[in-house]
């Protein structure tokens, strides 16, 4: 089977799966509805019907948010793995999530009245701060940006920022409020957030897709890329900017969800090989599928209580990741 056919096959399977998951996610939740109510809420909405209101005001934005965030986390993971040439990289590893988390903790403590849109600005700023620090630290040595130094700097910054935000949360007794958010949950995504932040996520995802052909090039050494007349640092910079925006917003909305960014790109590569023009679209769809799936379980496993969906992702993700690593040493 040629790689193109294989890609189209896998891609259509995932798209079908995405549609099914979208429908299931709107259909099922803590509040029991009939098929009719769901159809009416979507196509014939009356705001005075409480069941329809739940679907329209809470469930639909939540589902769209989950899909977008899943894509964003998976996409930024793939970007990080490619840019750092490290298969274990994701935005968490480079301290970007913890930078966002620290600035969010700041905003919770000092400006508790801010709306989510405003705290998101803090979050993206934190993500950018971490990225600048990590890349600044690792380029202090005059040699070219080495992946190993990058990862080491990322881990140091990550540990430092996490310690700071944990400490701050303890001192100000915000620990309880932040706990749920640390594990990740999508319950809070509203229409207002979606309309203000969704376009940014969508824009970031689009740039990520357009970047895919250049990402293939990052397989080569820096010297080779330069001698082909391409500016490697501008590719890296755009990729990093995407990561900052995508993961900054994701962290602000659902918290520091681990593993999506790490495992999804590997699954995509496992399915279609190493060409980023094929890996990237599949990564984005798979990321959406995983979060939708996890969120569906999170809402229905113990209703009406919410289980943090980050826990579910880790529960499913870790064994699967180990399975993949054992099955195919070559590609991981």
């Amino acid at each position, binding site marked *: 089977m040629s790689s193109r056919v294989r890609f189209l096959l896998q891609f259509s399977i995932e798209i079908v799966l995405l549609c099914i998951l979208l429908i299931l996610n709107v259909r099922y939740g803590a509040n029991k509805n009939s098929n009719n109510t769901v159809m009416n809420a979507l196509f014939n909405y009356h705001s005075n019907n409480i069941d329809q209101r739940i679907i329209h005001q809470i469930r639909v934005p939540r589902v769209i948010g989950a899909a977008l965030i899943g894509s964003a986390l998976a996409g930024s993971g793939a970007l990080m793995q490619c840019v750092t040439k490290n298969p274990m990289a994701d935005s968490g590893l480079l301290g970007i999530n913890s930078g966002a988390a620290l600035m969010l903790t700041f905003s919770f403590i000092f400006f508790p009245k801010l709306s989510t849109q405003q705290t998101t600005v803090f979050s993206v700023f934190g993500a950018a701060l971490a990225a600048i620090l990590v890349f600044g630290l690792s380029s202090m040595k*005059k*040699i070219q940006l080495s992946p190993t130094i990058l990862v080491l700097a990322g881990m140091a910054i990550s540990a430092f920022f996490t310690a700071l935000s944990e400490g701050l949360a303890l001192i100000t007794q915000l620990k309880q409020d932040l706990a749920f958010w640390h594990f990740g949950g999508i319950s809070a995504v509203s229409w207002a957030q979606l309309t203000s932040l969704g376009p940014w996520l969508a824009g970031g995802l689009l740039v990520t897709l*357009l970047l895919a052909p250049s990402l293939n090039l990052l*397989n*080569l050494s820096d*010297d*080779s890329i*330069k*001698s082909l*007349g391409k500016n490697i640092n501008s590719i890296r910079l755009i990729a990093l900017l995407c990561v900052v925006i995508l993961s900054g917003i994701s962290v602000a909305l659902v918290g520091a969800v681990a593993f999506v960014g790490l495992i999804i790109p590997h699954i995509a590569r496992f399915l279609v090989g190493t060409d980023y023009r094929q890996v990237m679209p599949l990564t984005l769809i798979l990321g959406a599928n995983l979060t939708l799936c996890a969120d569906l379980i999170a809402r229905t496993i113990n209703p009406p209580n919410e289980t943090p969906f980050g826990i579910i992702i880790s529960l499913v993700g870790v064994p699967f990741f180990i399975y993949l690593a054992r099955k195919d040493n070559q590609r991981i």
Partner: protein
Amino acid sequence: MNIIETKKVCVSYEKKLTINDLSIQIPKGRITTLIGPNGSGKSTLIRTIAHLLHPCDGSVFLDSQNIDEEKTSDIAKKLAVLPQSSNTASDLTVNDLVTFGRIPYRKRFATLSKLDHEKIDWAIERASLKDLKNRRLSTLSGGQRQRAWIAMAIAQDTDTIILDEPTTYLDLTHQLDVMLLIKELNEKEHRTIIMALHDLNHAARFSDQLIAIKDGVLQVSGPVQKVITKQNLRNIFNIDATIVNDHDKPLILTYNRWQEGIAN
């Protein structure tokens, strides 16, 4: 006519001055090889000529034009560079890799043109990789992999190809394959070849001109016969070599460390 010239070039790498006041001329359409001991600045010079390092003083001229005043994308159409085997792109197929060679000619988001396909097929054919076209680099032998990298440089369709130690880590046969391929590119397609080599016999056999450097300073340059002499090898490598003539090319039979008083 000279394709590349450096004028009083100084290059520092990691804050150490590695090349000092170096002026060389590289003739068009010939094979020019840089020789010199480890750490002599061969790689630094190769990377400077290839516009990968910037001289802190002096200038590099490509086709009598200062290379700093040209766009990198234009240089990529004139110079193909094969860096020292630091490349780890093992997941790519041969075809993927050779396709990268067309990047300087491609517009953003454009698909491969008919010319691109022709050049890619031609490069793969030239490097005798037709049967291995769809194999991943990680599944190839060292020699085949090196030929794939050279094929990428061929596909770049430049007048000049720069290679930094193209035969390192290869066994005898594969070294010879690579050298013969390079020679063929020069003879049949009249491409200018600039390379750094450690094997002096290969350098002598396959080059038209040699440039010897030591500690970043030019020692001697010129035709092979003029450079490979007992006296020069003593100065450059500190060896006492036994040189014979083989098909009008000098051939080093054996050598010892040069010690004052023992050899003359």
